[in-house]
Structure formats: C-alpha cells, structure tokens
C-alpha cells in the first residue's frame, strides 16, 4: 500500500503578468533568480529539505521551460520509486473539461493524484516566492493544535497589509477573522499563500465547492472552512520571504543577494537550494576585467566591468562593456563597449556593440506604467539589440530589433518595442 504522511501541491501555472516581457514566454516560477536558480527551486528545495518527497507541480501557462527544468526531479532528489515529483497540467475529461480556473479549482482537478498517496495532510504552495522554510515544523505545529488548516503568515508593515490576505488571531493563534485584500486591515499578519490542510477537510471543501467559478483558496476555500467552524491556525513566520511578483521587487530581491552578508544567505551549508545545472565550467575573468560587489554563475566570461550586479550562467561580457546595478540572465552576450545601467536582461539576449541601456531621465512607460517603472530597462529573452543604440529608463524590449526600430538611434524613456516572435 502507498502511504505518504504529507504531500505537497505546488501551484506553478500562473503567468505573472506583472513581470512584463520576462514572462512573455515562460511561467513565472521558471524565471531565473540569483544567478543560477529559477524561482521554483526555492519551494522545491524547501520540500526535500523538509522531508517531503512527493510533490505535484500544477502547470498551465507556458510550461515548456518548467517541464524541462523539473524533468524527473533529479536535481532535488525527487526522482523516487514511490512519489517524487509529478508535473500536473490540466487534461481533457469525458465530461466537463476545463483549464485550471483558480488555485483551488486546479487542486480539485487533481483529487485523484492526491488520493493515490493516501495522505493525512496536504501542503499547498505557490511557485513564486523566495524563502527558506521548514514545512516539517509547520506540520508539527498543525498537529499540536489539532488543526484542520494551518496558514503560514508573516507580519508586514500595516500600510502594505491591504495587498495581502490578512488574518486576525486570538491568543492561541487560532484565526478568528480572515480578510482578503482588505481596504482597512485589522491586523498586519499577512497570509503567505502556504497552507497545510488535513486531507479530509481539504477533500470535503473542494468537492463542496466544485461548482464555484474560479475557485480560489483565499477567496472561497478558506472562508468556506471558516464558516463551517473548522480549526484554522496561523503559523507565524519571521524569516526572509519575498514575493517577486513585480519587476521592482524582483530586482530588489536579486540585489539583496550581493550584500556583504546577505539577509537571504545562499552560502550556508544548511538548507541548500538545489537547481538543474546547465553549466559546469568555472567562470573566467580576464586580465582587463574588473568585478565588484556582484555574484556570477558558472561558465560566465567577463572581459569588461561589472558592478553591483547579478550575472547568470554562461554569460559573456566583452571588452570595454560596463554593467551596473543589473540582472543579466543565462546565455546573454553583452558586446564590446556597451554600457548597461539598471537593467533586467532575460536569457539568451544579444546586446550589440557600443549600446547604452538606462540613459536619460525617467519617463512613465507609454503603455504599461504600472509594470515598467522604477527606472528599469527590461529586455525579454532571445531579444537582439542592434549596435550603437541608446535606450532610456522605464522601457521594455522583446524580440529581434533592428536599427529601424530606433528612430535617431534611440528608444526614449518610457518606450516599448515588442516584436512578434518567429512562431507567431
């Protein structure tokens, strides 16, 4: 008989549209982070480090990169005879086939998967947060409280609390009130989107709510259980936890890694973060290169200068190029004499010779000012930037651009160039 005390269900189907061109072709959990990782590595590593060896990864939006990254789970030791990692996309059914319409709906559509493992508890995770957390301790807490649901929650500044699901607790940490993105929050304890459910409670709620449109944990399942007087507890977490849902929070979280002793320390032996390694060779730093306050991935070659930056694997920074305050992802080439300031450059981009990124004054983005702001230049994967052009702040570029796309050799601040890919 197959029996797992707790299995994890990892929601990785979201687009993460606030990351703009970074998620045009990949799901948010597959976006790279911290030089060599992808965002999903953090919850997956937390699972295996917490002793959870059965993880269902629910995918929907642009799953190719995610699928190849996860494979059969070898990097996380999740290749198991029983359990291990399973990628769970939506599938056609004899009646009532549908996409995953909400977080809880996605879990509902995989009841059978969970049933196979005969679990006592199910851990619900999302694939877009950066943190290290021992779910085992959370489970012990869940058991000690004889809880039906335990929600991980962390204190946030009260002015930011309205962005989150907020919980109000009594002196025993039992949740007495639950508000989803309230205008006037009654507490500063924000739900982190991490839940432990006792299996029977979860199953009952999901079946009961199966006809709920866009069934969501925060909006429907938790309120439903609350109304039915289930024992719901908050598990307070005080470590590092970062939602990297916007370009500025994504940029900041990366930049925090280059502090002398980062708050989120990847260099500790304990609680390693695992990832699929695409490049093995060491990095090469040439005699004319200079690097300061930066982290660099394997196989990268630097002939120019790098300051305050996070550089991925197999990146080439050529002679005379200067990179500052930027995130450069895997496989990108920055050619001779180019200057890159405060940019996020996605995977396999070619930046031509003597270009300048991040010049001039800030201007609001002409199309999506809520996405492209904070003075960042954002360049989507596989883009090409021609030689000699200048690119202003709050800009976004995606696709193979040519000099004709840059009137007067310039994309002014707030500009945007999206060129359709070859397959569209």
């Amino acid at each position: 008989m197959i029996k797992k005390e707790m299995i994890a269900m990892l929601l990785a189907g979201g687009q993460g549209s606030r990351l703009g061109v970074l998620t045009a072709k990949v799901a948010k959990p597959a976006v790279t982070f911290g030089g060599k990782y992808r965002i999903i590595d953090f919850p997956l590593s937390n699972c295996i480090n917490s002793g959870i060896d059965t993880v269902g990864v629910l995918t929907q939006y642009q799953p190719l990169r995610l699928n190849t990254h996860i494979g059969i789970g070898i990097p996380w030791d999740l290749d198991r005879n029983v359990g291990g990692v399973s990628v769970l996309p939506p599938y056609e059914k004899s009646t009532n086939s549908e996409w995953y319409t909400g977080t809880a709906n996605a879990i509902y559509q995989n009841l059978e998967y969970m049933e196979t493992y005969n679990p006592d508890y199910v851990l619900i995770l999302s694939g877009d947060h950066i943190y290290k957390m021992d779910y085992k301790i959370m489970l012990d807490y869940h058991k000690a409280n004889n809880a039906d649901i335990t929600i991980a929650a962390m204190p946030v500044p009260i002015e930011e609390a309205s962005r989150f699901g907020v919980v109000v607790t009594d002196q025993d940490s039992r949740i007495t009130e639950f508000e989803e993105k309230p205008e006037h929050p009654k507490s500063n304890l924000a739900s982190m989107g991490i839940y432990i459910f006792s299996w029977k409670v979860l199953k009952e709620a999901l079946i009961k709510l199966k006809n709920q449109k866009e069934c969501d944990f925060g909006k429907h399942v938790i309120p439903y259980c609350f109304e039915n007087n289930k024992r719901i507890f908050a598990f307070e977490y005080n470590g590092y936890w970062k939602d990297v849902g916007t370009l500025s929070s994504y940029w900041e979280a990366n930049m925090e890694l280059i502090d002398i002793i980062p708050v989120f320390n990847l260099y500790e032996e304990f609680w390693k973060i695992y990832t699929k390694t695409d490049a093995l060779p060491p990095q090469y730093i040439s005699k004319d290169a200079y690097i300061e306050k930066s982290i660099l991935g394997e196989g990268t070659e630097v002939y120019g200068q790098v300051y305050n930056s996070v550089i991925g694997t197999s990146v080439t920074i050529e002679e005379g190029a200067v990179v500052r305050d930027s995130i450069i992802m895997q496989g990108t080439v920055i050619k001779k004499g180019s200057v890159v300031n405060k940019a996020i450059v996605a995977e396999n981009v070619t930046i031509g010779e003597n270009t300048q990124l991040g010049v001039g004054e800030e201007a609001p983005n002409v199309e999506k000012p809520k996405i492209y702001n904070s003075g960042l230049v954002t360049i989507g994967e596989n883009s090409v930037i021609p030689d000699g052009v200048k690119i202003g702040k709050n800009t976004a570029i995606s696709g193979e651009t040519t000099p004709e796309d840059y009137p007067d050799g310039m994309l002014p601040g707030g500009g945007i160039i999206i060129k359709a890919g070859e397959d569209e």
Partner: protein
Amino acid sequence: MRAIGIILAGGNNKMMKELSNKRAIAAMPIAGSYRSIDFALSNMSNSHISKVAVITQYNARSLNEHLSSSKWWDFGRKQGGLFVFTPTITADSSYWYRGTADSLYQNLHFLKSSHEPYVVIASGDGVYKLDYNKVLEYHIEKKADITMVVKKLDDKSDIKRFGLVSMSPEGRITEIDEKPIETNLSTASIGVYVIRRRLLIELIEKAAEEDRHDFVKDILIRYKNLKRIYGYKLESYWSNISTVNSYYKTNMDFLDKDIRNYFFKEYPDIYSKVDDLPPAKYNYGANVKNSLVASGCIINGLVENSVLFKKVYIGNNTVIKNSIILNNTYIGDNAYIENCIVESNGTIKANTRYVGEKNEPKIVIENGVSYLS
C-alpha cells in the same frame, strides 16, 4: 554498443609528492570544476560506451565519493552502468592489484560476462577529449590486434616518464620503450588501448599463468612482434597530470582561451558531479585578473593568473598570484600566496606568506579546521 570501457584509476605516483597523500591521481581536481577522471568518463559516455568499469586501489576514498552516483556521466542505466572494482579477498586470491594486468585478471568476470566484442581501456590521469569510436574504426580498418593511442610530445624534458613508441609509416608499432633513461623517441603512449575482448581475456590469462602482472611490460612489449599492434595518433590537446609540475601546468593551460573554449564550449561537454553551490561572490575589494573561479567562492582580495576551485574564501587585502587553490579552502586576511598549490579543505591564517618558485610550485598543506565546514 560495440565496446565496454575500463578505466585504470588505481595508481599513485611519487612525483605527485604530498598531493597524493589525500587521493588517487584520478580524483585530482582539474580546471576549477572537474576531477581528472571526469575526462575519461565523459569520453566514454560521449562515445556511447554504456558499460564502464573503474578499477581503483590507492587511496580511493575521494574517488569513490566522486563516483557515488553514476548519473552525472549518464551511466545509471539498465543497459550497462558504472562499476567500481577495488581489490577484494576471494577464495583464490588475497592480493592487492599487483599491476595493471593483474587488476584486469582479478576482475576477469566483468570481461567474461560482457558480450560486447571490444574493450576500450583508458587511464584516469589524462586530460583530453577523444571519441573512442574513431580509435575503434581505425583498429578495425588496420585489422589490428591491439591499438594504442599515441601522442607526439614537443616537450622533450618531460618525456621519460611515459612509454615511448616508434611506428612504421603505416602505423604499426615497431618499438616500445617504457620510461627509458635515455631516448630519442618523442611519441608517447597515452594509456588508451582498444582490443578485442576475447583476445584480452586470453592475453590476461596467459600472463597470470606466468605470474606476470603488468599490461605494458608483460603484454604489449612481449607481444609487439607476435601481434599486430598499431598506434592511433592523437592530434588534439592531451596532458597527463601525474607529476606536480604537469598538474600545475595543466591547470594553468585552462587560462588560455583556445584550450578553455575547446573543453568548455565545443561539443561534446565534459561532465562532473554537481555540487549545488551558489554563484561565486565578489565583494568590495575583490580584484580578479586572468583567473578561473568556480562556484561557491567568496572573494575579497586580489587574484591574478590563478585557478580557484569550488568554495574558496579569499580574505581582505589578500593576494593570490600564479597559484592553484583547491576546494573548500579558507584564506584569511592580508595573506600573500604566489606560485603555490594550496591543498583542499585547509585554512590559511591571516598574514601568512607562501611563495614558491616560478615553474616549481610550492605545495601548501594547512590542516586547520575549515571555517567553511
């Protein structure tokens, strides 16, 4: 596949001095991220040889740790796999491996139970890329009994530690001179052989009967006129690391762009065990010039013309020049290290100074407890 592979990784060499106290030569770290045996293992894997035996004897702890999972080289398969043979006491034998031929004899079962017609034998101390299928095709075309891979060496000063050969114009080996005192030959055997499996079994059994144990002296040299032994010339990069100076030079070779690109960028790749270390980190005060830096390093000082292996910490105001710093080493503040090989898992205290001779690197062993655990 038409061949099985055997990697002879049992050896030690006095010329490695203190570096071999810790590990077999095949486990020596190379080029920041690799171990010596990765090159032979990757060549086997890239040549689609799916069943490989590694024969180890001397100080195999480090090597066994490296080989603890065969999946990095893609050998974890139902068809084939990676086998590690260390000497064991059996009903018939309580000897260590007394030589290369004896190590094969003691594992004759592996050869007998395979069904592939050919065997590729390689050593664990060579740094090179080679598609063994090309050697096998040459072997078949020449109707050879044994083919040995040979390399013309330009550096005459370092030549006498190899088996040297002379060849007829069509490639037949006419002379084999093992580690000669005096010689005018300049083509060396690199320790890679292709031979038919049944012939190998026959030759090994005959040698054992006569109480002979060495593959080169007791088989190749004695049979050179009796059997058709051919030489396959290797034209690409090859280096043997089994002396301190050649080990140092081989690592420094990777600072050369052409050699680096040949191994790191050109197809096929060299594989190694994955260590899951974070990206290398450069703090204020870091100044790195013409060097290789592996993952997990944290740098606060000056590093020039050097190779830093995985998880090396360089303190503030510390200067590292023309040196190789092996894995998991902590070097404190204000240290000065030039022309050295710093042994792994050590701690160099602040304000320490070690300077070796140019082209005669000093081996630095500090057995302090590592700060980086």
